[in-house]
């Protein structure tokens, strides 16, 4: 079968980027959105075609085989360490392809309506195109360097899009923060790549994942603190993934990133870019699993679990609807990491499949949540939950879709989230009870905070709005409807047939007790939220008041932002950069200037000798004569 057309899937958004970027001012106002949307529409169709052909056309007894659909030389550093750009198709990349193109297409479509009144829409669509291109390039990468390259490009487009309102200082700060934090993580990613590839001798995923061959090729791999260099490399790579996926403690950029336009949050900070870390771990899953008995994978599991609980706790206290969603995203990505972390390989790879499945369904319902939130914000012109309430009357369509998404994320059957979340918890239960228990609690918290915002926004007290809120225009409605439909039905897909750790279909059994338990805690969360927020009351305030210090700490996100800011300001700028700058100006440059000034001083001293006073000259002559007399008489007597 010929797969080479797949190169057009990333290239189409790139074209959109180039056209919108180069013809920045010359393009008619409406056209930029049309170009972007249609490019992504075609790309989405192509990726559905690819998915269909791949999943239904290439199955064999060996499972699905990866396909290198397209390849081009980029830079041959050495004959072995050659870097090629390519398109690599395997189940997870195709799954991501579908996710990215679909969400991106819907977000483009949504943005046509959402951004209709903005100046500089061309810029917006150009950046969206760049982002889609980079994300697709990242997803389709056949080697780690290409992944890293597009990883960085994704970061930049995220930076540009967060900073879209660049004359707003908070947006600029958020953009810089997002870029610098992820960049900081990426440095470790790069070191990890270099370290790991030093032993593997290649950047290609096949070689990287073949850990037995790497160990065979290197007679002795150094061991540092009880772990082999390979494990260290993988953990460093995971740091990069954690940065992009906003895992604790590198999560601080994600809530601030909500300064960007809401569709951007839906695309980048909910559905696609932030799951890149999960995708990266999944890509290198055999290596993670094989190195040092999967120690790196344990780290992934612990970080994921902790982040998921941590974010869920913070999400309960936030008043900004987008920030709640941001923390929810972080929490759900933690879930995915947890799923990967607890997974085994082959027949025990339930966690892997579950994690990928959750990634897939999460993309749908989280994008829906963000787009719904965008519709609300568009209607009430505020992000704060305090300015909302009783919206179900004004925005019935939004209400229903938002409710579906909330049910999906809370794990209520038969919505999509139920299946994937249940699978993760099942995998965690088999692996480690503590992780399972934490995940279980988080599921309850998730249901609670999601319905908290749902009830606060759509129910709660009725209020008078200056502008009567209303359902959005059609171009914004269609994505909501499509995603709502997806949130309902996607859970029924036979994911265990398609996406598995060893590419062969995985047999799973459905545990009724587990499912009941997780649904139970979800329902408890929903009921709590219903009781507290269904009607306006002062009960939530009382509760938060009684918690006092704890509540305040959580509301301030455990003071992580302040901690980072403190480190940046006090340590990096004041303790390192300022002394370096001082040292440079005063010591190093001072030394150079001292040499110069000494010379000048010396010359001034010598200059004074030539005073023009001939009597002093005469004295000089006499002394010289005497000097030579003495010299020749006593020291060089032979002359």
């Amino acid at each position: 079968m010929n797969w080479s057309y797949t190169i057009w899937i990333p290239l189409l958004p790139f074209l959109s980027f180039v056209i919108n970027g180069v013809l920045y001012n010359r393009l008619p106002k409406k056209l930029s959105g049309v170009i972007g949307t249609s490019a992504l529409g075609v790309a989405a169709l192509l990726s559905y075609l690819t998915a269909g052909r791949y999943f239904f056309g290439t199955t064999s007894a060996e499972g699905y085989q990866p396909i290198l659909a397209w390849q081009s030389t980029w830079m041959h550093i050495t004959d072995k360490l050659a870097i090629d750009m390519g398109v690599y198709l395997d189940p997870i990349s195709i799954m991501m392809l579908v996710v990215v193109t679909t969400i991106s297409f819907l977000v483009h479509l949504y943005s046509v309506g959402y951004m209709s009144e903005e100046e500089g829409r061309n810029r917006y669509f150009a950046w969206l195109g760049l982002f889609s291109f980079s994300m697709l390039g990242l997803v389709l990468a056949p080697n780690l360097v290409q992944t890293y390259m597009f990883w960085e490009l994704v970061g930049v487009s995220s930076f540009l899009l967060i900073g879209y309102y660049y004359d707003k200082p908070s947006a600029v700060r958020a953009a810089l923060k997002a870029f610098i934090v992820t960049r900081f993580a990426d440095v470790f990613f790069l070191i990890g790549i270099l370290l790991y590839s030093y032993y593997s001798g290649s950047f290609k995923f096949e070689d990287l994942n073949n850990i037995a061959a790497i160990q065979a090729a290197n007679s002795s791999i150094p061991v540092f603190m009880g772990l082999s260099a390979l494990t260290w490399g993988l953990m460093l790579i995971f740091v990069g993934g954690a940065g992009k996926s906003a895992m604790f403690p590198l999560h601080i950029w994600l809530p601030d990133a909500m300064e960007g336009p809401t569709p951007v949050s839906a695309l980048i900070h909910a559905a696609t870019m932030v799951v890149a870390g999960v995708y990266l771990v999944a890509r290198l899953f055999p290596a993670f699993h094989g190195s040092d008995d999967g120690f790196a994978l344990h780290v992934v599991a612990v970080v994921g679990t902790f982040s998921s609980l941590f974010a869920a706790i913070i999400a309960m206290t936030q008043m900004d609807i987008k920030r709640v969603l941001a923390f929810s995203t972080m929490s759900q990505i933690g879930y995915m990491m947890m799923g990967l972390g607890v997974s085994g390989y082959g027949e025990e790879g339930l966690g892997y499949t579950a994690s990928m499945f959750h990634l897939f369904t999460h993309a749908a319902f989280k994008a829906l949540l963000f787009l719904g939130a965008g519709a609300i914000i568009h209607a009430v012109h505020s992000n704060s939950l305090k300015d909302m309430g009783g919206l179900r009357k004004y925005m019935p369509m939004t209400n229903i879709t938002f409710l579906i998404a909330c049910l999906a994320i809370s794990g209520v059957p038969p919505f999509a989230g139920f299946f994937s979340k249940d699978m993760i918890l099942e995998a965690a239960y088999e692996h480690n009870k503590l992780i399972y228990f934490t995940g279980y609690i988080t599921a309850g918290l998730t249901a609670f905070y999601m319905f908290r915002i749902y009830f606060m926004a759509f129910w709660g007290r009725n209020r008078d709005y200056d502008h009567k809120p209303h359902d959005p225009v059609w171009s914004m409605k269609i994505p909501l409807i499509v995603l709502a439909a997806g949130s309902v039905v996607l859970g029924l897909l036979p994911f265990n047939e398609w996406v598995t750790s060893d590419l062969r279909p995985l047999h799973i059994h459905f545990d009724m007790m587990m499912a009941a338990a997780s649904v139970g805690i979800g329902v408890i969360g929903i009921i709590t939220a219903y009781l507290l927020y269904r009607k306006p009351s002062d009960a939530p305030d009382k509760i938060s008041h009684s918690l006092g210090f704890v509540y305040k700490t959580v509301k301030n996100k455990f003071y992580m932002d302040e901690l980072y800011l403190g480190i940046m300001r006090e340590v990096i700028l004041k303790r390192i950069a300022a002394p370096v700058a001082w040292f440079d100006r005063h010591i190093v440059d001072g030394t150079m200037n001292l040499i110069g000034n000494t010379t000048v001083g010396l010359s001034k001293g010598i200059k004074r000798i030539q005073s023009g006073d001939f009597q002093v000259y005469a004295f000089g002559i006499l002394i010289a004569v005497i000097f030579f007399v003495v010299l020749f008489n006593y020291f060089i007597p032979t002359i």
Partner: protein
Amino acid sequence: MTERIIFYILAFIMIVFSLMSVTSTKIIRSAIYLLGVLMATAGLYFLFNLNFLGAIQLTVYAGGIMVLIVIAILLTHHVGFGLPVPDKKHMILGWLAAMIGITISFFQFTTHTFKPKIGNLDDRVSKMGADMLHYGDGGFVLPFEVISILLLAGIIAAITIAKGGIPHLKKRLKSGQPTTVSSSTKKQ
């Protein structure tokens, strides 16, 4: 013995008068002390039986040069004009130079053994005249001619400089323009 005594007297006069000459605050007195030194020198020549040399010393030095100096003093000073006392810097330099110099040269000629005298010097005036105009071995006719030309050149130079366009130069100097000799002579 008499010669020695006379020599010491003359030496004493020379040293004391030199000292007076270089330290006196009245320029004209200084000149007179210098005259004393020169005359004592002539006396020394006479003492050594070099009468011709002594006579020249008297006529050229004590006569001619002193007259020039006195006239120069008259042209530039009022009689009895007080000389300023030397400043500290020059005093120190002068003392230093004199002391180091005397020490070194004293050390030199006390440690050096001079060759003994070989015979007597033929110092007749006729011998001097013959040698002066003699161009063979030991003859001084060439230096003699050179000195004559030098003297001539000196006279011409003195005249030229003395009559140079000084007022013009002075004006130029004040206005800050370059003061080359060629341009000033051309203007005249």
